[in-house]
């Protein structure tokens, strides 16, 4: 099935720049997305995510640099292999669910007969079968979101681009969608997942790319990125430790959470050194755990310090 499968990446973005008049939306951006992996495309609002995605799906063209998809330059023909769920999305208000889905499938080059089968399959899976002949205006927001998701996958795309797919969904449907996305992953499809919700990115993504102010900030596998941030974080709970924790040569920063504290170790301090000092000082330690930085932390640090 995946005849496009090659040692090369599914998507190669090389030195891409896009300007709108004096404003540079994307500057010299390069990254690769590999098949069978979920690629987290992260960044604050206005960082250039939507512009980049629009170039990938062929809505606009880069001013400089190149985009290669499935080893080819971008063309309208390739659009049929992409499923794109934009962040800002909608449905025809007064049209029946089944008619809209048919139209979107036809626009991706799916034959009517095949489209009808897949529509039934997906509506069934999404628990929306009874809504097939209803109009958009009869559907709840969450249902509309699910219909929009169906319209992105009806043509069985090899590359799935999901921009904030969970917004407006309740936790049950979020779980359900994550399950569906995971299925695509096992089918060796490529998934680009753009979001602000770092928790879900952390859960789903194999690779991430963080961009800010039109430029790449960090990129790589989630593992690598986190490791590059070191293991200088300690989740701490205890009493009588104030004196030790205020020692700047050991602890650089203390962030208080509701029932525990996050300790940022000073350069050169090892976790066991701190723990020993704490115990020797007579503090009562109930929790002491070396933690990785969360994606959220990395995001906030890189974006605010930029």
């Amino acid at each position, binding site marked *: 099935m995946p005849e496009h499968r090659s040692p090369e990446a599914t998507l190669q973005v090389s030195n891409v720049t896009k300007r709108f*008049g004096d404003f540079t939306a994307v500057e010299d951006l390069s990254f690769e997305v590999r098949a069978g992996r979920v690629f987290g495309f992260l960044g604050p609002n206005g960082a250039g995510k939507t512009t980049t995605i*629009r170039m990938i*799906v*062929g*809505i606009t063209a880069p001013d400089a640099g190149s985009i290669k998809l499935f080893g080819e330059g971008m063309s*309208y023909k390739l*659009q*049929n292999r*992409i499923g*794109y769920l*934009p962040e*800002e*999305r*909608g*449905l*025809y*208000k*007064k*049209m029946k669910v089944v*008619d809209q889905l048919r*139209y*979107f499938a*036809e*626009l*991706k*080059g799916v034959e009517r007969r095949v489209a009808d089968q897949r529509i039934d399959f997906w509506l069934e899976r999404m628990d929306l079968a009874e809504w097939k002949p209803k109009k958009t205006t009869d559907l709840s927001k969450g249902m509309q979101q699910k219909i929009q998701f169906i*319209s992105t996958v009806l043509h069985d795309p090899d590359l799935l681009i999901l921009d904030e797919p969970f917004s407006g969904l309740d936790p049950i449907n979020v779980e359900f969608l994550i399950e569906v996305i995971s299925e695509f992953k096992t089918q060796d499809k490529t998934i680009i997942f753009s979001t602000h919700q770092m928790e879900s990115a952390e859960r789903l993504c194999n690779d991430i790319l963080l961009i800010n102010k039109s430029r790449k900030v960090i990129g790589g596998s989630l593992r690598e990125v986190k490791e590059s941030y070191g293991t200088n974080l300690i989740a701490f709970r205890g009493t009588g430790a104030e004196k030790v924790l205020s020692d700047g040569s050991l602890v650089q920063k203390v962030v208080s959470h509701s029932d525990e504290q996050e300790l940022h170790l000073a350069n050169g301090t090892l976790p066991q050194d701190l723990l020993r000092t704490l115990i020797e000082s007579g503090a009562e330690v109930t929790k002491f755990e070396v933690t990785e930085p969360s994606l959220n932390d990395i995001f906030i640090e890189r974006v605010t310090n930029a």
Partner: protein
Amino acid sequence: MRKFLSIVRHEFKKIVLKWSFLISTLLFPVLAAILAMIPLIIFSLRGEPTQIAVADPTGNILPRLRSNLSAERLMEKARQAAGEQFKDFSGSQERAMQNDAAMFMESIVLVPYDTTGKTVDQSRTDLLAKIKADEVDAYLIVPQSLDQQFEFRSRKGGDFVTNDTFTDALNAAVRSQRLAEANISEERLTELSAKVKIDAKGIDETGAERDTTGTLIAAFAIGLMIYVTLAIYGQVIMGAVVEEKETRIAEILFSSARPFELMFGKLVGVGLAGLTQLSIWLTSAVVILGVAASQTDLGPILGLAPKITPFMLILFLIFFLLGFFIYASIFALIGSMVTSMQEGSQFAFPPVLIMLAGFYFSFAVVRDPNSTLSVFVSIAPFLAPITMPVRILAEMPPYWQIGLSILVNVATIAGLVWVTARVYRVGMLMYGKRATIPEVWKWVRHA
């Protein structure tokens, strides 16, 4: 190409499968048919005959009145009246008139009332009593001298058709009695008072006769029909564009097909829907008028209608399509610039004004189809789609002018579609604020 056809079908179905389309398409002819039929139905309903008691102490008026109300005389009168307007009658019209005459005759029954030995007051009291007792519906008291007042009282005061017929017959009866008293025969009088006959007809360049009244009406009708259809479907296009922009469907569409395909598919789909509606209307108009003509005496009026050849129909179709693509691309352009339908309606004003100007120029074109102004407006872009069909109907212009007009407007469409496609590509993905004219101009140059 397959995607393009999908887009066309989608846009077409979106309009045609709506209730509003079905209702307006079907209701319009049905309403027209009902409006045409109502008078026929009403006049074919026969009421109870009106019983009129006639108190005629002179004894001269009643027999004349009776003869004037006979079927033959009514028929003759109707033929005279019609003959002043129309030259010849078809068999069906002749029959229709006979029916009418018979109907009037049957609707009036004259009841003689014996006045011997009664004063006028006595007769009146007696007759009023008869009306009260429902023996008669009305009475007529003929005075002793014809110069005095006749007295007519009726319970059916509102039945103007019967009243008119009756009054006419009475007038004629009195007149012929007076003539008889003056020793002049009725025939002689008719001869003397015959109307002057004027044969008024327009002629075209070749001197062939043609009637102008029908042409005038038909020219306005075609101008109005094209203007209204263009205005309606222009708004439809704008609505469809704004919906896709407002709901952000455009983003999905643009990731599936070329913007040009999407825009042009929309124009073609909506255009086909408009053409469907227009042809249903035209067909039903022809059918309704045909049926009406065979059923009623409208026939002679229809006979005045200009001869529309298949060649002219093809030209009308061409100019309708030219107009459609010109205005539809303007409305699509506006739709992709604005953020809501309300905003769009403000911007829709200029193109509607141009269309309206085209319609108003039709007046000048009908009055003088070959004036410099008429030639100019029937070739000018934007105006020609409305004015040229009017001119063709008024008088077939030289073919080179028609050709030039088509050429000019096709070129206009090419330019407009090119501009619109560029604005559409950018505008459809611009959310939040309305694009300014300088911005739009930039998109056109750089897109």
